[in-house]
């Protein structure tokens, strides 16, 4: 999840610049299939050189949105503009976008080189230029020795690179990636994520990726749009999505999170979050649209501290006590499952309504003896600023 942001990258935020001209504009786009609304009145701007991720579970409309940009589906309502030109009704073969398919869709009757050359041949480029570009693309994905092979003579990872090379060979304004790494194993997927980022910077293209893998979206994207039932829940850079989710849905979809149900109250000029489960009220940051009422306090497991002793009370600290229910040793970290009850839980007749919070603790020393063990009574505490209050 960690992302190294260079100084140049950090400054890249055209979406915050009111003068920036978007490359792709979805303008009130709706797509219905019979009674089913796949995409519901979506408006979105994507900027040049941006790496944009559409993230959501299957059936949320992310693939339909991408297919409408590629031209395979026509919007029921609304317009799609590419570089200021309305492309809504333009057939796919005229659009200056290329797509890398989830299945790779490599032509099985053509060699690797012919697959890469396919798009270039459609433009009737001179033969010499085509072969030069194919060489360049083969070098880019390090597949020069495999130029004459057929796709079925390649490994999954190699096929993925051919598909990538083929889709960038025409130097499209926008490259669409439909679950591009879905078929690769975990290790290869992680390597390829970084290669994709390198490639995007090297080529200076705009990448739009569709994925259901939140880690993948976090790693590669400049901005993520979290989709749910045909609409956007939140569009923001990865760190914002992770640290400042705006709804329970986004908070739950990205990473692991603890959610405490309760309510927001106004106490003087401050806003407090109160819950029966908490030892005392927590002061929360007063964001403009925060109003008193039922809400959830969301805290990431790594932001919880676990201790045997009662932490000092204070307005800037949240505290809750419980019993260690389970400890998951993951190697690098241990995850403590703390049941918010004073009595140790009992497997046979457990009250499932009692919440269990998860606290991640880095295993900074070699594990010889745990200071905290099963059924210990413990305290969980956190800085008030570490929690996010969600009313949606």
């Amino acid at each position, binding site marked *: 999840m960690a992302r190294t942001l260079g100084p140049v990258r950090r400054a890249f935020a055209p979406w915050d610049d009111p003068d920036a001209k978007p490359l792709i504009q979805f303008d009130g786009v709706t797509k219905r299939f019979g009674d089913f609304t796949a995409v519901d009145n979506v408006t979105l701007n994507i900027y040049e050189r941006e790496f944009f991720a559409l993230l959501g579970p299957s059936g949320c409309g992310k693939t339909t949105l991408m297919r409408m940009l590629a031209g395979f589906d026509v919007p029921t309502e609304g317009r799609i503009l590419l570089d200021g030109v309305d492309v809504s009704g333009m*057939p*796919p073969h005229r659009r200056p976008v*290329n797509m890398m398919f989830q*299945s790779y*869709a490599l032509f099985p009757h053509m060699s690797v080189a012919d697959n890469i050359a396919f*798009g270039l041949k459609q433009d009737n480029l001179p033969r010499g230029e085509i072969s030069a570009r194919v060489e360049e693309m083969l070098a880019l994905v390090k597949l020069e020795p495999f130029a004459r092979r057929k796709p079925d003579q390649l490994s999954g990872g190699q096929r993925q690179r051919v598909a990538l090379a083929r889709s960038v060979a*025409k130097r499209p304004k926008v490259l669409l990636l439909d679950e591009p790494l879905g078929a690769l194993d975990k290790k290869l997927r992680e390597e390829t994520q970084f290669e994709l980022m390198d490639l995007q910077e090297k080529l200076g293209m705009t990448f739009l990726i569709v994925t259901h893998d939140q880690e993948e979206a976090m790693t590669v994207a400049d901005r993520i749009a979290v989709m749910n039932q045909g609409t956007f829940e939140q569009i923001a850079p990865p760190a914002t999505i992770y640290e400042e989710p705006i709804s329970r849905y986004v908070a739950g979809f990205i990473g692991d999170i603890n959610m405490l149900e309760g309510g927001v109250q106004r106490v003087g000029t401050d806003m407090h979050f109160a819950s029966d489960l908490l030892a005392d009220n927590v002061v929360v940051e007063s964001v403009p649209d925060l109003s008193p009422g039922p809400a959830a306090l969301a805290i990431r497991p790594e932001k919880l501290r676990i201790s045997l002793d009662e932490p000092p009370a204070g307005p800037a600290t949240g505290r809750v006590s419980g019993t260690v229910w389970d400890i998951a040793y993951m190697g690098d970290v241990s995850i403590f499952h703390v049941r918010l009850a004073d009595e140790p839980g009992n497997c046979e007749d457990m009250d499932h309504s009692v919440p269990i919070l998860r606290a991640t603790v880095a295993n900074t020393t070699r594990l010889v003896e745990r200071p905290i063990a099963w059924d210990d009574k413990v305290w969980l505490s956190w800085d008030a600023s570490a929690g996010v209050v969600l009313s949606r």
Partner: protein
Amino acid sequence: MTDLPAASVSDPQSTARASSGLGRRLLIAVPYVWLLIFFLAPFAIVLRISFSEVAIAIPPYLPVFDLSEGWTAFVEDVQRLSFENYTWLAGDPLYLNSYISSVTIAFVSTVLTLLVGFPLAYGMARAPSSWRPILMMLIILPFWTSFLIRVYAWIGILRPEGYLTIFAQTLGLIGDDDQIRLLGSNAAVYIGIVYSYLPFMVLPLYASLERMDGSLLEAAQDLGCPPLKTFWVVTVPLAIPGIIAGCFLVFIPAVGEFVIPDLLGGSDTLMIGRTLWAEFFSNRDWPVSSAVAVILLLVLIVPIVAFQTFQQRQQEAMR
């Protein structure tokens, strides 16, 4: 692991392989024995008759091998066999023309069947998957009635005062006194062959088109290829196994076709099947008709072997 002697590791496996090898050989032996008895043996008889001479007798050829008359008589009989029938076939242009005409008619019909069958198979493969079993059923349905009756029914359609003429007259395409005279022409034979052999073309075509990944067509268009060109550079090349299989399945039986040219063709429609029939039943010249059959087999062996080789290569490629 590397220190282990190889034999101790592979022993149980190789034993299992040996026993399954025996079972496999037995299993393969069954169809081969079948072929030997029901194909090779009758062929040997035909081949032997083709070397005999015609006679007014039962059976109508000489010599008839009879071991009861002693070994010398048998050897004399064997020595009487000759290539005479074949030289006779070569001498009469009727036979050569029949072969050429048969192959030509079969070739043209195969091309026509492909032209009709491809859109049909393509439509089936693109149809919603819930429709496909029904469409498949409709293709196979004609097999439920006799082939002979179905070809016969075409006489009713194609004859000058038949349904085709009535239909065209009703639509006003031709005058009320005009007639469409298709019956008794090569065109009627083409219609008959295309109609009868269409399922053999459609089924392998459908199999290869249905297997095709729809995203390949999208990928081609995404890369700037217009739909019609996509059809030629992606769909057709990927359907080639089906096209070849379908063409062979139509061409090979069409060359020897007898019923269709006899019922729908004219007196000038030369096809080897008819010639063979005439020699056998009208002239009662078994030796010559056997020779005609043997030559037909030789003519067909080239495409049959080509088809077999192609199929084998396909299967190896699939592995």
